[in-house]
């Protein structure tokens, strides 16, 4: 088998930008061709997982806002809800 999957991080644990970068690199690799069939199929599967991860991350994302506050000279963070402040 190819080494594509053995050394790769599971797509599920990649950040969006890492998944997208690897996805685009995977496409280039697969398009260059001349790969053994098993390796091409492994790359395809890896790419599809990465694409799914990208979409999943965007679908699940919700903007998170924290506000820095100073308490007793210590910097702290608290969640900030813009709508309640409005």
């Amino acid at each position, binding site marked *: 088998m190819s080494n594509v999957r053995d050394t790769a991080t599971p797509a599920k644990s990649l950040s969006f930008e890492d998944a997208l970068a690897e996805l685009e690199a995977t*496409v280039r690799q697969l398009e260059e061709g001349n790969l053994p069939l098993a390796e091409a199929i492994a790359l395809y599967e890896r*790419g599809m997982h990465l694409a799914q991860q990208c979409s999943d991350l965007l679908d699940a994302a919700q903007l998170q*806002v924290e506000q820095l506050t100073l308490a007793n000279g210590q910097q702290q963070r608290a969640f900030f809800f813009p709508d309640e402040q409005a």
Partner: protein
Amino acid sequence: MTPWTVGKLTHYIQELLESDPQLTDLWLTGELSNVTRSSAGHLYFTLKDATAAIKCVMWRSAVEKVTWQPAQGAAALAHGHVSLYPAQGYYQLVVDQLRPAGLGDLYSQFEQLRDRLKAEGLFDAARKRALPQFPRVLGIVTSPQAAALRDVLKVIGRRYPLVRIRLAPTLVQGATAPPQIVAALQAIDADDEVDAILVVRGGGSLEELWAFNDELVARAIVACRHPVVVGVGHETDSTIADFVADVRAPTPSAAAEMAVPDQAELRQRVRTCTRQLEQALRRRLSLARQAIDQRWRALHRLSPQAQIDAQRQQVDDLSQRAARSLEHTLALHHSQLAGLQARLAALSPLAVLERGYAIVRQQDTGTIVRQVEQVSPGDRLSVRVQDGEFGATVRSGS
């Protein structure tokens, strides 16, 4: 006396006005009214006070340098020269600089600071850093109550909700705003997770935006380890903070758009990748299929069955040739035999006997009698004719 033409008089007055040293270089204060902007970008207005008014025009090249919004009723300080508009017969002030009056000191401070920081190279494009393409954490320096913040969060939430926002709250106007802005910038910049910082404030009057013309604020922006986007006021507002920012945005919403990628484009990129993956794999599979077909044909040519078939044909061929060769030899021998038989038959003594000859032998010795003197009377002979033998006795000699 020759009467003057209107043109001649107008020209005469024009010369008077435009050659007067006082009128060619003067500062004039007054209240702005009838402010209109032509489609060509020129600005027309009237400056007036309690007793008088003068029409003013500002050409587009000069209007572009104005960093505030000249509004109806505002007190203004204009610089320019008096000229005459012959077609309408009125005089006007051609304004090349327009400042808000009362802020005259502030304005010259602004210009001095701008020139000084510029001379230090703080506005240089080479100093400016690019924003990260995919920020993970964005710092925002603004007032938590401001509409600008809500706009920014709305834009970022729509475009790239993956980013996390850290808000460093500060006042954004008033005398205490500059040190607060500096402290907020330093606090957010100290955060190692932050990838870029947005400094935003909605539109306001020149005084309201003044905190962003503060030298300490400008230097705090320059000192940031992380790239800073400044979006203060409207498109027409320019502050020192804008000039020193790594990225200058015309408005807070524009700053938000510049700071994060757009998920619509990102989703499109992912879809494109998926399509390319599918196409590439399809191409690879059809290559593999072709290779298999080719080898299948080659294998078929080399299979034992094919060899057996070929050898069987060879055996057939050889046996046919062998059979043909045998028949040929037999036929040859047959004809040779027939020839020999014919010759043998021709030479056989029996054939002579058939023609009526006989063979005579001495009965006792079997000696063939060829001459008369071989026999004597009384000898017993054996005579062989065609169909058998009979005995005979010699009666007389010769």
